[in-house]
């Protein structure tokens, strides 16, 4: 085939629809958000350039209190890495040993990932319902009357009550990735190790886990950036309440944007989130590289 002008034009035409969509909706808005973040703008009048004032306000304002939101999402990230991923890894390792019903377990564990977060949120709202919810009813029937709570109304429990469904929903996702990785470990490698007298624990620790490190890295990155970006379930369960106890950066962003029409400040939070996700992804990559 000749590389004539016509050929090049055709390449361009094949790429054009995708490029328009991709640049218009994903790439250009990043730069637009960045430029909005330097302005004070209510969406009606023209934006006014105010330099870094939004960033200064974001990190000092007591009414926005970004630090609380960040602390909440970092706590979620920590729980996600240390509890959710550990459990997911355990499940994946056990399923990798081909137990009876392997496929069924895999499919059941992954199912919550596919269900709409609104549906999951509404169901957990009902599970936590103080009068008729399954949780309080179960505690009562076990004779633990004193443990019952208004789970989503009590400042002491609400954060944990929000985190449980989030962690619960995505265990299956991480398990699936790790399971796929474990299935890729060459069987000869495991057999040789077994012949050398490796116990199951040693096999997991010295052969399988090091082998699936690239996947563990992806899982850790997804768990951390996903926690920083988390929105759906918290929005449905509490929308940041009661009294801002469960605020995360995304709920702050949406409320500043669409309740208070502060487009400049909303964009500032968006930019901060993008930068944070990027920095954490780089850091996690570094940690995994160093371990090699």
């Amino acid at each position, binding site marked *: 085939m000749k590389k004539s002008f016509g050929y090049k034009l055709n390449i361009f035409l094949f*790429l054009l*629809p995708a490029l328009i969509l991709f640049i218009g909706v*994903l790439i250009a808005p990043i730069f637009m958000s960045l430029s909005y973040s330097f302005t004070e703008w209510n969406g009606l009048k023209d934006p006014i350039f105010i330099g870094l004032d939004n960033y200064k306000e974001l990190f000092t304002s007591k009414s926005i209190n970004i630090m609380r939101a960040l602390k909440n999402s970092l706590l979620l990230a920590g729980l996600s890495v240390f509890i959710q991923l550990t459990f997911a890894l355990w499940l994946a390792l056990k399923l990798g040993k081909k137990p009876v019903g392997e496929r069924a377990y895999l499919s059941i564990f992954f199912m919550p990932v*596919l269900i709409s977060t*609104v549906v999951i949120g*509404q169901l957990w709202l009902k599970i936590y319902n103080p009068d008729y919810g399954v949780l309080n009813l179960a505690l009562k029937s076990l004779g633990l009357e004193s443990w019952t709570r208004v789970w989503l109304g009590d400042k002491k429990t609400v954060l944990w009550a929000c985190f449980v469904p989030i962690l619960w929903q995505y265990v299956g996702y991480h398990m699936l*990735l790790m399971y796929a990785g474990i299935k890729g470990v060459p069987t000869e490698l495991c057999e040789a190790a077994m012949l050398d007298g490796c116990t199951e624990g040693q096999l997991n620790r010295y052969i399988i886990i090091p082998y699936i490190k690239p996947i563990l890295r992806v899982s850790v990155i997804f768990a951390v950036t996903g926690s920083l970006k988390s929105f759906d379930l918290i929005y449905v369960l509490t929308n940041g309440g009661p009294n801002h106890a469960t605020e995360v950066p*995304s709920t702050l962003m949406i409320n500043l944007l669409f309740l208070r029409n502060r487009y400049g400040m909303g964009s500032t939070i968006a930019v901060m989130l993008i930068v944070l996700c990027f920095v954490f992804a780089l850091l996690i990559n570094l940690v995994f590289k160093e371990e090699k």
Partner: protein
Amino acid sequence: MNAQNKQAIDSAPKKKGIVRKIAVYAVLIFWAFVSLFPVYWMLTFSLKNNAEIFGENVIGLPKYWVWENYTRALGVGNMPRYFVNSIVVTVATILITLVTSVMASYALTRLKWKGSKTMNKFFMLGLTIPIHASIVPLYTTLAKVSMLNTYWALIIPYSAFSLAMGILISIGFMGDIPYDLDEAAFLDGCGVWGIFFRVIVPLMTPAVATVGIYTFLQCWNELMFANVFISRDVLKTLPVGIQSLSGQYTTEWGPIGAALSLATIPTLLVYVFLSKQIQESFIAGAVKG
């Protein structure tokens, strides 16, 4: 060492192994139960009356099957509209994603040009860009061109955010099509468009299924864009619609459960029939992303 002693030493680790195995199965079964419970509970309380839901029979199967909850769920608010809206938005998004990503994949893999690898990497950025980056610019732009509260306000962003995944999957499938076919078609007088439509497109059906399922799952459940770009009730998609219905009918658990079930059943059906493809598309997205 006498025989009895030896037997005791042999069977101790064996016994330990069995106990451990039972423990493993117990945890697996427990987690299967925990994973299924909310959905099981939803499906059962969607068929119960209030007396059963609120005390008589909280977690059992319904004693009287109240199918009326489903007819009532379809009667409250604009539930049928939400359903139709979700279908329209999802189907349109799948079509646009498929056409654009198969075309782009063709240019990226079958046509020879400098920079195709870089361009591919550029598109793969889409797997990691969060939707937060787009929400304000999209909102203000859509408002400017009066496209808020239209189907397009969702279809365009959804297609753009599904694109990277679509390209990733299409390239995978396209790699399996032998290059000899392109050459044979070329010798028969086909140009690049002829090869695309007569050779590549007909062989891309498996990719169509995988891209379609993945895009379906993303659009059907999406909340943030749908919540912000659509405020007119008759245009809301299921997640937003259900969210507002649940706020209005807090004591009517039966019909709300029916509405939640109606929104979930399509996903469950797709999953039952295509669980392997779905799982594989999620794995592919993560491994490259």
